């Protein structure tokens, strides 16, 4: 089988994931796009491992490690997103601007947060 098929598919999947990370608003959809990027890398690792017929099978071992690290990453990432949602009432990455530099801009989060605090009280 031509190696280019696997390599091009991995490159295209990576770029689809890149678009998702940059264009999505919901933090959980951003995490999904990160998963796509990690999977593209895994496909590359497996394809090159099979092509090189590596005796140590470094590619496949690293793929297993990447899968485990991705599982850890998604667990921590979702915990952080849930915590942000609990504190701010939104999981929208565009509205988490507390560390931004433009102080003159009206802050939509604050109104939200106060609203949520009032609702909680």
């Amino acid at each position, binding site marked *: *089988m*031509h*190696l*280019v*098929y*696997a*390599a*091009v598919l991995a*490159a*295209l*999947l*990576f*770029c*689809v*994931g890149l*678009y*998702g990370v*940059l*264009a*999505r*608003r*919901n933090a*959980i*959809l951003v995490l*999904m*796009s990160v*998963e*796509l990027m990690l*999977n593209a890398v*895994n*496909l590359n690792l*497996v*394809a090159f*491992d*099979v*092509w090189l*017929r590596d005796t*140590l099978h470094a590619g*496949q*071992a690293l793929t*297993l*490690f990447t*899968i*485990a*690290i*991705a*599982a*850890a*990453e998604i*667990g*921590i990432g*979702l*915990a952080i*997103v*849930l*915590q942000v*949602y609990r504190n701010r009432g939104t*999981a*929208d990455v*565009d509205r988490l601007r507390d560390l931004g530099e433009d102080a003159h801009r009206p802050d939509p989060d604050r109104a939200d947060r106060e609203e949520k605090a009032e609702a909680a009280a």
Partner: protein
Amino acid sequence: MTGTTVLAANAPGFLSPSGVEIAFLLVGIATLGAAVVTVTTKQLVHAALWLVMALGGLAVEYLLLTAEFIAWVQVLIYVGSVVVLLLFGLMLTKAPIGRSPDADSANRWPALGVAVAAAAALVWVVVDAFRTTWIDLRGAPQGSTKVSGEILFRHWVLPFEALSVLLLAALVGAIVLSRRKKEER
């Protein structure tokens, strides 16, 4: 025992070489399409379900590349647990069930530009580099469970153990992060 091993080593693959190539291409197109729908759909839950199709398609690609163990790990961990976690996350953050018009942020056109530029550069480099390279899929599977277990526990034991410590740390971290404080209860 040895008889079956020899038989497995000499048996022809399930598909002919060109059959593998065609199947790889078709599954690749389906995978890519599912991935594109995942990052463009306006319905958040549907994005998670299309992600299942993309990850499952990748598992089939691993099978076609004779990396069987990785394929089943992919099905177990990604399709089985990561997508379920993502769906739980969507539900716990009260994601809208129907179409949400603000699923994409305002910078989607710059994002599209960046992604297309990256895709063009990567595909050009990769095609130019590996134009004349073929994978030889004949012979014994490259990633059967036996092979994977042997290399993992013979040559990669230390990273494996380090990874288990990392997973433990991630578990503890996730619990600590998502636990409610006492006064919030």
